[in-house]
């Protein structure tokens, strides 16, 4: 029982970071219809940038985090302008391949700049673990969970109440209507990339402070796919719930199934789940179902 709870709590914490990444992913998809295969690389870049500000520039944590977010936001704006905007209206496969190519470029740049070995973050959160009964939780997990949840609430409020948030929702709904209402769709596309990069950077710093970062760090980005497929590609609450469920599922299968199927089952379980969802309920829990009749 305690073992189960331990797995559950850890899964919830990791899942909350998946939700964050999934949120960034859904933002871009909803606004501009781009499937971003470089989401994991944005995460990795954010983590490495923060690490560089912390260890190489010797900045205090909050300054480093702030600088990282600004830098990632700006980088995303440049990226959107240079690569994604010329591709508006191109077929899906071109856009998918472009983001895959971008992922390779980012990975290469990171490896060239920082090398491939594991680097650990200087401790950001207090190291004393918290005990609830027999469940031992390191504080990093708690902070991760709280930060992710706080961000999620902030986003919900942003979309509900601010002008910009409403404009983004309008764009997601229909580009033409948004344009005729005087919303600059291009600016919204750029903004969605910017926000997505910032959110991913936060996720990267959170996960990085748990495990440290190396070049395979971007594989976290792949977990976003089961999460968004479960939640529905274009649903923000879906991304949050999907991320949490995938995190828990992954941890539970790692805990219980790895004796039976050997190592690596933790990594592959979300994808098995993904195929099952696609066969049963392809548009996920909250995704817009496209109904076509001939």
């Amino acid at each position, binding site marked *: 029982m305690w073992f189960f709870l331990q797995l559950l709590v850890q899964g919830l914490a990791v899942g909350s970071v998946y939700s964050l990444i999934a949120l960034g992913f859904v933002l871009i998809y909803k606004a501009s219809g781009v499937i971003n295969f470089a989401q994991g690389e944005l995460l990795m870049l954010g983590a490495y940038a923060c690490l560089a500000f912390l260890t190489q520039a010797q900045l205090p944590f909050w300054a480093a985090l702030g600088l990282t977010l600004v830098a990632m936001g700006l980088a995303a704006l440049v990226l959107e302008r240079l690569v994604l905007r*010329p591709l508006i209206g191109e077929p899906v496969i*071109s856009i998918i391949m*472009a983001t*895959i*190519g971008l992922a*390779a470029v980012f990975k290469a740049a990171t490896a060239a700049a920082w090398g491939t070995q594991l680097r650990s973050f200087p401790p950001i959160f207090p190291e004393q673990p918290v005990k609830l009964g027999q469940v031992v939780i390191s504080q990093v997990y708690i902070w991760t969970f709280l930060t992710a949840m706080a961000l999620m609430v902030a986003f919900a409020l942003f979309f509900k109440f601010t002008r910009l948030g409403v404009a983004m929702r309008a764009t997601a709904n229909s580009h033409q209507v948004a344009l005729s209402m005087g919303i600059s769709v291009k600016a919204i596309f750029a903004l969605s990339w910017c926000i997505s990069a910032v959110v991913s950077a936060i996720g990267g710093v959170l996960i990085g402070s748990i495990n440290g970062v190396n070049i395979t760090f971007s594989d976290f980005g792949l977990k976003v796919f089961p999460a968004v497929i479960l939640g529905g590609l274009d649903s923000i609450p879906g991304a949050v719930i999907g991320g949490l469920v995938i995190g828990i599922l992954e941890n539970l299968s790692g805990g219980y199934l790895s004796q039976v199927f050997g190592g690596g089952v933790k990594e592959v379980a979300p*994808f098995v789940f993904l195929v099952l969802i696609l066969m049963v309920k392809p548009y996920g829990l909250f995704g817009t179902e496209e109904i076509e009749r*001939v």
Partner: protein
Amino acid sequence: MANKCGLFHQSYQSDMGIFQTWFARVWMALLFAWLLVFPFIAKPMGKALGTNLLYLANLIGIYIIGAQGLNILTGYTGQISLGHGAFMGVGAYASAILTMKLGLSFWVALPLSGLIAAAVGMFFGIPSLRLKGLYLAIATMAAQFIIQYVMRNATWLTGGSDGMSVRPPVFFGMPLNNDRRYYFLIYALVILATLFTKNLTRSRPGRAFVAIRDRYLSAEVMGVNVWGYRILSFGVSSFMVGIAGSLWAHYVRVISDEHFTMGLSVHYLASIIIGGLGSVTGAIYGAIFMTLLPELLRIPERALSAIWENAITVVNSLREGTFGLLVVLFIIFEPDGLAHRWNKIKAYWKLWPFSY
């Protein structure tokens, strides 16, 4: 009276022909002659260039077969697959298991491994019943990871991370155990695969594929069985990539799961995009380009590591980065690929110097 300039078909038969002019036929004959002569002069040529040209040619041949396969699915039917690297692995492992564990002859195992890959591909194509582009890309990506996991962890079947060793095929008592002998096997199949693809696109299924790609709703209205043809496309496509896998397995003779990664799937997709989606010659150009690119990148790499000894990590990432950058640049500036560029060049010179 001016002479006519250009191609004017006077019968449907000539309009449907594969090689429409005597000029194309002559060039095709020259290409065949070159393909026959090449293995005998590859060694001295390779020595002059400092590489094993025959080995590269064989790699290109295997990739052409796989790229033609993926092009049927992605270029003609418009279904994106990020799992073809794994489907190639299925073909390779199937062939290895059939010949080494069950003792079948290579000539039986080759088509069988294609069929097994086709079955696996069709299984993961089932979601295409209800899914389009984006979702399908994700479904096939999941297939990639699941198959890779099975290849690594089903130790009793695949040898796990140690991989499997495979015997070279025997052709009427002659083992095809060197580059030159294997070359003829590969290129016989390359020609078969290319002819098959070309003919498929001129047939009823081929036209159905294109109709589904362009507007599947209209296709359905016209009475095309959309799902059936999508699954068929998955099957044919995975069959060809499975054949490529089997050829690969018996060529390199040691296979492990490390070759059949997501990277390979992306490599295949990149080659048909760079070559030209939905173009038979495009798949060939793309496969050649993507195989030669790493070789060409060795030249700046060598120069770089000569002046700076700590360059290894940078060099490795340079290769990956260049690859990614090229793909992005191609998509932005030449979205129709090399085949289209080549047609444009031809069109320009056709009427030169009066090009309007």
